């Protein structure tokens, strides 16, 4: 018998409350991407990953297990998990088997972002093992009480390390810090910029040699409709020499990738990703995403039909 949604939500709330993330994978795996980059710990300007790119390989590993079991992995395990999870980190167990290629793939995106920022003379700090998930999924699912407690902990952390500017790498963390934290917390006045905004505002232009290579831009719903960020990625890609192709739904009218319902309705998520792929112009070869959830969902649905990659890979 399928486990009820309340167990799923309880598990996610429990993880955020007790382990600092809805998807608590081992700390070492969250910070490994920064090995050898020499990023200083902390500082006034910090790069904040919010763990979003790093957790994707583990979500994929769980999704693969789920596929074999014909139903949401969370649904299958949640009732049992809420009891056991108090002692044993169930997510760690379920996400075992994440491929090292996947881990490398998502870690490389973060490394690319640091490299590109470095070329613009921007060398941010990083919080390493102190960094916390920003809480986006809990907020979206209506787990407001646990989200607010977590947001206060994140704010305390940022204050303690003296952060004045947070450079984010994904739309969901950007939305949390720029729109949600100021609403639910007192005195959240830390500046928040996506690295794409930082690069687009930089005096040094991104220049490249990609003459006439066409690229289809898949906008993130959160960047375009919550944060009004549509021009920046296009300016950066055009500067690099790409010819930008707009799909049927783009900019503020972008079509969702389906990812937001992956945890509760994986089949529905796949169906929506398929619809998005069908709406791409005929002959599309390269698609640029700017959100790890979009990248994950479209890549899974597209398989080998189109080459889907994060915008940072194109801007490198």
């Amino acid at each position, binding site marked *: 018998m399928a486990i009820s*949604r*309340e167990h799923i*939500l*309880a598990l996610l*709330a429990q993880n955020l409350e007790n382990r600092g993330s809805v998807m608590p994978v081992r700390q070492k795996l969250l910070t490994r991407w920064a090995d050898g980059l020499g990023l200083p710990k902390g500082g006034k300007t910090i790069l904040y990953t919010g763990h979003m790119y790093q957790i994707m390989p583990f979500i994929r590993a769980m999704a693969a297990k789920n596929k074999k079991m014909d139903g949401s992995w969370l649904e299958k395990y949640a009732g049992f998990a809420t009891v056991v999870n108090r002692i044993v980190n169930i997510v760690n167990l379920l996400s075992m088997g994440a491929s090292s290629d996947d881990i490398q793939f998502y870690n490389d995106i973060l490394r690319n972002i640091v490299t590109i920022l470095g070329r613009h003379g921007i060398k941010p700090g990083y919080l390493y093992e102190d960094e916390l998930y920003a809480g986006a999924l809990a*907020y*979206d*699912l*209506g*787990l*407001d*009480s*646990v989200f607010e407690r977590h947001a206060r902990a994140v704010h305390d952390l940022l204050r303690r390390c003296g952060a004045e500017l947070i450079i984010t790498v994904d739309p969901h963390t950007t939305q949390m810090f720029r729109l949600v934290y100021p609403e639910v917390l007192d005195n959240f006045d830390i500046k928040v910029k996506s690295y794409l905004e930082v690069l687009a505002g930089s005096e040094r232009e991104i220049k490249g040699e990609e003459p006439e290579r066409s690229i289809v831009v898949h906008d993130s*719903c959160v960047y375009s*409709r*919550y944060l009004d960020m549509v021009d920046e990625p296009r300016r950066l890609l055009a500067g690099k020499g790409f010819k930008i192709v707009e799909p049927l739904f783009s900019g*503020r*009218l*972008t*079509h*969702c990738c*389906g990812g*937001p*319902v992956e945890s*509760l*309705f994986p089949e*529905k998520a796949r169906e*929506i990703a398929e*619809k*998005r792929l069908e709406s791409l112009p005929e002959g599309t070869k390269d698609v640029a995403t700017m959100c790890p959830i979009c990248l994950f969902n479209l890549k899974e649905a597209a398989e080998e039909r189109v080459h889907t990659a994060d915008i940072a890979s194109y801007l490198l």
Partner: protein
Amino acid sequence: MIRVNGEFRQRARLDKNFNAGQCFNCGTCTALCPVGMAILPRQLFRYVLLGAEEKIVEYSDSIYSCLLCRMCEENCPEGVLIAENIRALRRYLVEDVYHI
């Protein structure tokens, strides 16, 4: 038969940002929704405004299948905060129905 509860909105603390009363039932949200929700946002909001609490629980799958992508909101002629309204209903389900 639908049982209505006149105090539902107050009890569910939906007053702050819940502006579904502005919806004039045009259906733009429905036409644009990538999910194809089993119950249309406008119908769902009518139930809330009526205080049909049982219907909100009955349609919790739809409430949780919303992507919060704001495609509907972007095109809503009345400026209804559809995604935030849906999120508020989730908060109600979490706190008052699931007791998490």
